């Protein structure tokens, strides 16, 4: 008898929800994660999760949520999947509430909702300022329950290396490496759901966690999985700069009334709170009277860049603006934002309840990702599915705040059942696949490791990574010029060449983190080229993709999904029409009601 089996790669919100859905359907799941799933990057999400529950009598609806999301994404998202997500969102909140997520409450004991960027409605449910952590834990607990019942097997501390493809190009499982023993092993399954999150590490420093390298996405791309809209990278307007990471200061700070400003006088050295209000420039409120501090992230980020680099009004002459909460009562701040205030206090050493915070934009999210179809979260390779930040489906050219958690969970809800249906419909399941198919992929991966360990050279993987990050941040984030993009690609090619001479400085076969990092680094360099070349090709400005030489959105030529395809070591682009069947494209403006 044929028994279906599904592999899920990644244990953040998307991966955990996919796991739950598959297990609920009675199909065994093997869940792979680099870190214990409870430490996944979803834990860093702060502000909240969107659902049009309309609990404040504002007339909100899922149709308005759809409109805000599509408009916020500058019409690049396929609209039918976005509609299904927005329609499902209120039910997702109910489900999370039943799982025990400690959402903030109103005096009546209902869930409370707050405002977020790119909308005029109170649509964001929240658990203090650690909403992602709370939701991740709830899903982690449900998966632990399935694990206790023997319906889920976890492989924590394993890293994904590649898909196992048979001679017909169908996915029959995955190849992974145990990060402790360094053992490489093939795992058979009927389908693999990829839920491996973002790719912040490509930019060196970002708001992302260490594991967010995009390595799995890139490895799959190099095996023939298409990658869509890679050039759309979200730079969050408010992060605390740091050498190891850019720590996010949630949009919820502005949702709760936080105001962004700089002194009107360049280089004004007075303590911020001694500067009289008329001498402060609340530039977002002045430039965007309708949305004010809650314009979408791409708009706020470009405004801060303009203030700092064109108007030369950065605080203390530095690349920084004030994010000010000091006018909000302490009790409110502690109840609704404690998690992020604590981060500022611990890492900067200043209490943001008493002093305006100094923030600057930082790479935060990738709207682009693995290409999936509109209905089943299926990639172009049979048996490979994708959900969460690693895919491209829901956010178009710019993601609205608090839409990521809902898209991750919804993505898992789609991919889980779709993969089960596919597995059950297969004539020949994994049990009938010849062992040679699995041995072949394992041998290929082991050969890559052996070559890396033996390699003699003078290049250090961390140095190459830092150089990649610096170049990508400088040329491929907020403001993009074709000349610089081509320069960035030339740099990536130089780094790929130097990569052939890296020296691991650790040749052991036990918990060798240098080896696994070197594997990831190669994949990062390839994916960085997809991002950079995609940006160079797209001669327009749309959402987070901004080219001063092509300042307007150009629907005639560029209302298209970018689809990157790997062909014998070269990157080729194709372009697909976007589904705009529900909300006709219109100009995107935030200085007035849309």
């Amino acid at each position, binding site marked *: 008898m044929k028994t279906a089996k599904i592999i899920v790669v990644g244990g953040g919100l998307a991966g955990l929800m996919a796991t*739950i*859905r598959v297990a*609920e359907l009675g199909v065994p799941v093997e869940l792979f994660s680099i*870190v*214990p799933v*409870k*430490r*996944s*990057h979803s*834990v*860093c999400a702060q502000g909240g999760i969107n659902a049009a529950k309309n609990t404040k009598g504002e007339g909100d609806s899922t149709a308005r949520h759809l409109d805000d999301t599509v408009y916020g994404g500058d019409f690049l998202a396929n609209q039918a999947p976005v509609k299904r997500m927005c329609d499902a969102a209120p039910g997702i909140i*109910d*489900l999370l*509430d*039943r*799982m*025990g997520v*400690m*959402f*903030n*409450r*109103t005096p009546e*004991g*209902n869930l409370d909702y707050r405002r977020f960027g790119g909308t005029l409605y109170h649509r964001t449910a929240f658990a203090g300022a*650690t909403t992602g*952590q*709370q939701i991740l*834990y709830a899903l982690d*607990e*449900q998966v*632990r*329950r399935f694990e*206790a019942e023997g319906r889920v097997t976890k492989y*924590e501390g394993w890293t994904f290396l590649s898909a196992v493809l048979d001679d017909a190009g169908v996915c029959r499982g995955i190849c992974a490496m145990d990060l402790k023993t360094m053992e490489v092993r093939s795992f058979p399954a009927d389908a693999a759901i990829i839920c491996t999150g973002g790719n912040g590490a490509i930019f060196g420093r970002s708001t992302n*966690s*260490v*594991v967010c390298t995009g390595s799995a996405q890139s490895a799959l791309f190099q095996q023939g999985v298409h990658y869509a809209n890679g050039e759309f990278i979200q730079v969050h307007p408010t992060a605390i700069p740091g*050498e*190891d*990471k850019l*720590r*996010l200061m949630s949009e919820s700070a502005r949702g709760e009334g936080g105001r962004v400003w700089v002194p009107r006088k360049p280089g004004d050295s007075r303590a911020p709170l001694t500067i009289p209000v008329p001498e402060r420039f609340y530039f977002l409120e002045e430039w965007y009277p309708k949305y004010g501090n809650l314009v979408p992230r791409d708009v706020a980020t470009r405004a801060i860049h303009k203030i700092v680099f064109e108007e030369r009004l950065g605080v203390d002459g530095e690349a920084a603006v004030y994010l000010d909460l000091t006018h909000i009562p302490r009790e409110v701040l502690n*109840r609704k934002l404690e*998690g992020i205030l604590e*981060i500022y206090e*611990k*890492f*900067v050493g200043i209490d943001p309840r008493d002093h305006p915070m100094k923030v600057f934009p930082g790479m935060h999210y990738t709207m682009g990702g693995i290409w999936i179809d509109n209905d089943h979260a299926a990639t172009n390779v049979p048996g490979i599915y994708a959900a969460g930040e690693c895919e491209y489906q829901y956010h178009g050219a710019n993601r609205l705040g608090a839409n990521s958690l809902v898209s991750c969970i919804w993505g898992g*809800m789609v991919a889980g059942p779709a993969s089960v249906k596919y597995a059950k419909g297969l004539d020949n399941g994994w049990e009938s696949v010849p062992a040679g198919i699995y041995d072949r992929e394992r041998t290929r991966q082991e050969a890559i490791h052996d070559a890396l360990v033996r390699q003699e050279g003078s290049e*250090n993987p*961390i*140095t190459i990574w830092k150089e990649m990050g610096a170049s990508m941040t400088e040329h491929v984030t907020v403001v993009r010029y074709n000349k610089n993009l081509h320069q960035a690609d030339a740099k990536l090619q130089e780094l790929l060449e130097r990569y052939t001479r890296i020296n691991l*400085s*650790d040749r*052991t076969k*036990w*918990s*060798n*983190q*240098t080896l696994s990092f070197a594997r990831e680094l190669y994949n990062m360099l390839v994916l960085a080229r997809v991002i950079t070349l995609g940006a160079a090709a797209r001669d327009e400005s749309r959402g987070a993709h901004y080219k001063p030489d092509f300042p307007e959105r150009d629907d005639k030529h560029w209302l298209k999904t970018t689809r990157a395809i790997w062909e014998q070591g070269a990157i080729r682009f194709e372009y697909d029409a976007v589904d705009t069947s529900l909300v006709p494209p219109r100009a995107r403006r935030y200085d007035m009601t849309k």
Partner: protein
Amino acid sequence: MAEKKTVIVRVKRQASPEAAAGWEEYELPWRPSMNVIICLRDIAEHPVTRDSKQTTPVSYDANCLEEVCGACAMIVNGRPRQACSALVDTLQQPIRIEPLTKFPLVRDLTVDRDSMFRNLKRMKAWVPIDGTYDLGEGPRMSADQQEKAYPLSRCITCGNCLEVCPQVNQHSQFVGAAIISQVRLFNMHPTGAMHARERLDAVMGAGGVADCANARNCVEVCPKDIPLTESIADVNRQALKQAVLGWLFG
């Protein structure tokens, strides 16, 4: 020319569980707002000791770097804490970095904390739901109740509270404060409370709440300021009540 400011770091190295442990010292260029993670990355980029010996990068766990994932717990200058929030300028030098000692060592600063997740399983630390189907809203909850439960749900499973607990040792199975606090959290939730009995049975078993000897070290090192001793006292009361009722009517 003024001498460049440097940071002196000593790391306890151990290549594998069977290998001998030993200390290595490094001298790193100082930069503003440096933390212990940056020190470890510097060593990986230039794996050379202070006395110019070639060495290997240090093995360690880290992920979010903002003290919310729990991964990078280690002992810094004698105190268990998260390496990401251990800022160099607040630490006495040489900065001494060691692995947690109450968990099996993997390599260098990497330890295996899987036992904590296994114990969460034993304690049935979840809200049992009927399924992910659309069954309407969750139970009403007062803002007060939420504000009491929320701090408990911020536990990052770092293991620092186990590290400092004298009752957690080779001769005991004590699950530790973090796990007991989760029992309290789930017994607080309206749906979770329907299954409080099962959790209390588990926490009254071997290595359970009775093993706490009230040293109160746990609450001192918790990076999230979770009221761990209150949780233990509360779960103790619940367990006692269940035991007495069981004895009277069992």
